[in-house]
């Protein structure tokens, strides 16, 4: 269905977007203190990776990348389930989600 008439966005755009999203995610993880925000940043990084997968899958005409995205989304969903449960539990005991206060395992 797709032919030369279709406007093709170059793959490099997707990759740059993915890199930008990933960097935003990394910055979020490194700079934020709130656990939920860090969590969200991690999700952002996962989705940046998904974007890169999909982009390369299209570019290389390999369906494997798309398949892999499903796995990542599944894992991300599971991670959200577990992670949010943990954060709720931590909040209940500490009355805070500030990860700088969660340093009782410091060596």
């Amino acid at each position, binding site marked *: 269905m797709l032919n030369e008439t279709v406007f093709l966005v170059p793959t490099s755009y997707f990759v740059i977007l993915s890199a930008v999203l990933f960097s935003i995610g*990394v910055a979020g*993880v*490194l*700079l934020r203190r709130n656990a939920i925000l*860090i969590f969200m940043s991690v999700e952002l990084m996962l989705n940046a990776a998904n974007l890169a997968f999909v982009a390369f899958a299209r570019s290389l005409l390999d369906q494997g990348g798309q398949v892999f995205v499903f796995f990542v989304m599944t894992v991300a969903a599971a991670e959200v389930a577990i992670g949010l449960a943990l954060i709720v539990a931590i909040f209940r005991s500490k009355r805070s989600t500030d*990860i*700088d206060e969660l*340093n*009782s*395992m*410091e*060596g």
Partner: protein
Amino acid sequence: MDGLFSIVPLIILAPFTGVLINVFFGRKLMPRRDSVAPGVIASSMAGFSFLIAVLMFFALLANPAGAEVPVLTWINVGDGDFTLHIPWTLKVDTLSSVMMLVVTGVGTLIHIYAIGYMHGDIDEKAASRGLEGEEALDFKRRRYARFFAFFNLFLGSMLVLVTANNYLMMFVGWELVGLCSYLLIGFWFDSPEKNEAGQIIGVLNSSAGRKAFVVNRVGDFGMLLAIMLIFWSFGTLEFDDVFARAECMIEAPQAECLTLSAAELAPQGEGEAAAEEHGEGEARALTTPIALGPFAPTLGVVVTAITLLLLLGATGKSAQIPLFVWLPDAMAGPTPVSALIHAATMVTAGIYMITRSNVLYAMAPVSGMVVAVIGGATAFVAASIAVAQFDIKRVLAYSTISQLGFMIAAVGLGGYIAGIFHLATHAFFKALLFLGSGSVIHGMEHGHHHAHGQGEHHDAPHGEDERPFDPQDMRQMGGLRKHMPVTTWVYIIGALALAGIPPLAGFWSKDEILLDASLNSTLVYILLTVAAFFTAFYMGRQVFMVFYGSERTEAARHAQESPPVMTIPLIVLAGLSVVGGLINLPVGGLHPLGRWLEESVANAHIASFNILVATISTVLALVAIGLSYLLYGRKPLEEGEADPLYSTGPVFTFLNRKWYWDELYAAIFVRPYNRLGDFLANAVDWQFWHDFVHDRIIADAFQGWAAILSRPIDLGIVDGAVNGVAQLVESTSRSLRRVQTGYVRNYALAVLMGVVAILAYLAIRFLV
């Protein structure tokens, strides 16, 4: 009759069986305090041995040559030229038969006597230790059984000695009797002799035993050297072979004689005897060289050395100068021990040994002379000491030494028959005198207890007792004739026999010795005659002091006659002392003992009776007894009166102090030895070895090395390495610990930086 010889091992077996019974069951055999079973067993074993000895006597009557009965092979080593073959073979001949009869006969009587005596003695010792009831009974069981075990052991050992057919077995018996002597002298090893003030008087029994043992070691050392020299020179130790080879070597070279044995020689016996007759008188030069390692001395030198070394052994065992000092102290043992071992049997072993070796002594005239002079000198010295003693047993002890000197002098002069004859008669009357003195002591102790009542005499000493009670001190006796008639009469018989009054036993035997001496050596004859004079005097003194006059203490006033178990052996011995001279009566050329001993003693010669010698000795003895009557009998000592001999002043002190012989030995041997021992112990062992070598050198060096090993090496290097590793790990981890902040962001940053680094690396690789 010859088959009868084969039962001779039983003579030794019986006493040893008695030992085993008394050792293992002796105590159980005494249910009550007055039980006598151990003594009866020991006495019946001794009696059985006597029976065997009598049977051997009859067997020898039929066949005077005797027999050698093998029991077992003890040592059998080597082959070819060098063999050492020591059988335990019992030699039954006329000489050993005389010894067997004396040892077992007198031994049996003394065993029987001891049944009664030891009861009293042990009760006395138990009382003096304050033992009562069950304790006293247990004490008595142990001591009574032990005494008879030792006594039987002695009898068996003495029979091992006299029945040996070689020098080594004789030495075994020699040592065994020495051991028994030690054990029995120290029988009361744990009781110091104390007076009522608690001070120790007299010799401690155990140190007396030790003294006897040590002094005897000196003699035994000579004996052992002699035995080794005999084996080295003659290649055998069996008596007959030694003598046969020694005589062979007079004519033939050593090598030809070394294979000779007496059994092969037997057919030539007649010829040899003829040669003996022929050779007598002319002194043969024994010049055959004897190979002894690098040396080759002549036969004469070797035999002289052997016989002198044997003499050293004899001076130890038979208490002669210079080794007699142990015998007086040995009187610390119970009186039956003094009678059996230190008067009648063991101390005669030296005379028996010299008689047994007569062939060797005949070949060494120098040694014979030395033996005779030593015997004569001992007889004289000991008799003079006996004059000035106050202890009833010590007088008899010195008398024994003196009489042994007579015997030694006799065998030294070649009068073997006279020596053995006197040995036998002396065994009778000296055993009698010792047992008699035991009876007196027994009576005195009884009287002491009686006089001082029961129980309170320990803490309430009697005012009239000037000196502490000593049952053996003759000054505290007197007048015992009234209280102890049997003992008195047998004692007087023994004393007269010892003094040499005809026709008692001692007269005949002593006279024969004096006759031999008068024929061979004027010096020895004079010494012996003076000794005989002293003998009669001190026996007279003793009899008058002990049995006559008035009682000088309460103990003597209450003395009691001993029971029949003690007096009957005394009466039997008194009978033997009267008729003992018959065994060698010189009248009409009879000499039964001489004819008997000629069978086994090659150099025996029968002396004829000389009326002059006999008259002189008898007159001297009577004069001496008369003198003792003048001093002690006519006007008996009263209570507290001093001995009339004190008037001789320093002479008496000199004799009373035993010629200062013990002091001399103390100065020459004992003190230097103690000083040497002290020096070795303190200076050499303690200061040098312990303080210097061990502490300074070994211990300090060890500690020094240990200090080096422990501080610099162990603490510095080994521990330093281990601790250094630990510190390194610790400091590293301390600095690394700061990385682990616990902030997830830090870790995430680290991950990021790692990723960046990897990407940078990859990018650089890609681009370059």
